[in-house]
């Protein structure tokens, strides 16, 4: 059903809009048909009411022929055909009213006949405006839906954020340290708290600076360092020009988690995670590389985290941001290329 017909308020507003439009049509009929104002109103009122409904019909055509994807000529032909048929219909209603009223008004149908060409042209114009309005409304709705999708993707990212197994394993490390080295146990609690607090704080925001995101990653790796000891090594090669770039919050955090979970944790001897960032004019390029064992047992990787990142890039940057995955002999890299907007 048409959205205007879905509730009384919208319907009332729509019909209200037809008072001035109707006035214009009545005026056109009066001027080009030598009718009195009263005659014009009597003839045109039924036609105007019919038109108010006819101008809702582009909704269905517009929805089935979206501007972006449907072929141009198909859009044009469909709307033109509908416009001519419906204009003809409205004019017939007018003619019918005129012939009914002819006995009471002298030669009304004849006088109305002279107004038909100009009137038809105006009706056609109004119909085209209705088509344009419908396309605009559909576009508005689509962009609102995209916004909701982006929000949802962010929420999902947040939920995935504090991975419960990360927490449980960290707590297990703390439980081990309490008797071995109380000082380090306390240190681990502080690191864990730092990470959790920061990830909650950044998670509330839509965008953060690259430097903030990197700091969060560092906190995460500090916690995992306690768990994996010498098995987890890290190298950073970040161009300072990247620091103030704007980026979606917690976008790359899941990548570090993957690097640890599917990479380092599955290697008996551990390995080095390499983080690299460069800035080239308008582009920010970030890569994370970890060694992995191609023969490791499955860790239940289902690519959900990566798909989530891809969705968030798509909803924020359209097609202009990129995520590449490179799998070499024993190295797994994810490379992100984002437009380097500055933080305000």
């Amino acid at each position, binding site marked *: 059903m048409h959205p205007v017909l879905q509730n009384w308020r919208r319907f009332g507003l729509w019909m209200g809009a037809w008072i001035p439009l109707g006035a214009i049509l009545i005026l056109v009929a009066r001027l080009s048909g030598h009718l009195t104002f009263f005659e014009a109103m009597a003839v045109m009122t039924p036609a105007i009411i019919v038109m108010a409904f006819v101008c809702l019909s582009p909704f269905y055509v517009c929805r089935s022929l979206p501007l972006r994807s449907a072929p141009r000529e198909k859009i044009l032909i469909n709307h033109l055909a509908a416009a001519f048929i419906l204009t003809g219909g409205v004019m017939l209603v007018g003619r019918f009213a005129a012939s009914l009223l002819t006995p009471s008004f002298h030669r009304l149908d004849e006088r109305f006949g002279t107004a038909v060409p100009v009137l038809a042209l105006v009706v056609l114009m109004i119909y085209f405006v209705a088509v344009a309005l419908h396309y605009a409304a559909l576009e508005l709705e689509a962009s609102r839906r995209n916004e909701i999708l982006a929000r949802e993707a962010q929420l999902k990212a947040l939920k995935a954020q504090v991975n419960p197994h990360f927490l449980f*394993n960290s707590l297990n490390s703390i439980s081990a340290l309490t008797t071995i080295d109380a000082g380090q146990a306390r240190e681990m609690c502080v690191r864990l708290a730092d990470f959790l607090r920061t990830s909650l704080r950044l998670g509330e925001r839509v965008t953060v600076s690259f430097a903030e995101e990197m700091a969060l990653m560092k906190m995460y790796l500090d916690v995992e360092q306690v768990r994996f000891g010498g098995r987890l090594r890290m190298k950073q090669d970040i161009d300072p020009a990247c620091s103030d770039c704007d980026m979606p919050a917690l976008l790359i955090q899941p990548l570090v988690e993957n690097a640890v979970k599917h990479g380092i944790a599955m290697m008996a001897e551990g390995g080095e995670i390499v983080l690299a960032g460069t800035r080239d004019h308008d582009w920010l390029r970030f890569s994370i590389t970890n060694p992995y064992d191609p023969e490791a047992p499955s860790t239940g990787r289902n690519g959900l985290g990566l798909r989530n990142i891809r969705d968030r890039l798509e909803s924020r940057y359209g097609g202009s941001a990129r995520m590449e995955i490179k799998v070499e002999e024993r190295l797994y890299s994810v490379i992100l290329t984002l437009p380097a907007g500055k933080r305000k």
Partner: protein
Amino acid sequence: MSIRVVMADDEELARRVLREHLNTESDIEIVAECSNGFEAVKAVNELAPDLVFLDVQMPKLDGFEVIELIDSDAAVVFVTAYDQYAMRAFDAAAVDYLLKPYSADRFRASLERVRVRLREAKPAASVPKDLKLASRAPGDHVERIVVKDGPKVHVIPAGKLDYAEAQDDYVALRSEGRLWLKQQTISSLESALDPRRFIRLHRSYLVNVERIARIDANTKDTWLAVLTDGTKIPVSRGGYARFREIVGGE
């Protein structure tokens, strides 16, 4: 008589908590500490302990693969931060499933279970090997097959298995030109692998779909599958029907 223990966890700290708890017990003797699945299989098969503590996610082999490859009737206790493997662990006849981090009380309760289990007659407690191997959630298929190769462990990725042939209590696995023997029935192997990728063409043969070059008629009710390397495999009437169902009729 003390209980001989092997523990396997890739995290040093996790092993230390375990060791600390075990050291408070007088009847426990730790015979090996392992930091990956290969080491665990080797230690258990060489030392034949009474009890094994196993992490699930470890380098080389995961905890379930370790269970598949050990011969002994050792009691197994899983120790992991993941709760989603509990069902599978008990299906694989684990005595207990400890969630990290665990309390001293919970740990003692677990050891108590183990003591009861070890006092019981062993044969009654031991679970048929096939049941251990079949322990898997429906829809969850193995991506690789682990086989013992003398003292070592060989891993065959599912995609590199050409076919499996039943041989009494064993299956012969053909992969990359070599033949591997594993103590498992062909039916349990069939249920572990993805049914869309492996077809039981015959009572004794399970074949990788991608390796089938063509199927020729043989006699009235039997066919012959010709694999991409030229190997010929008998196809039963039921096997032919299953093949048609998966590949689609010609």
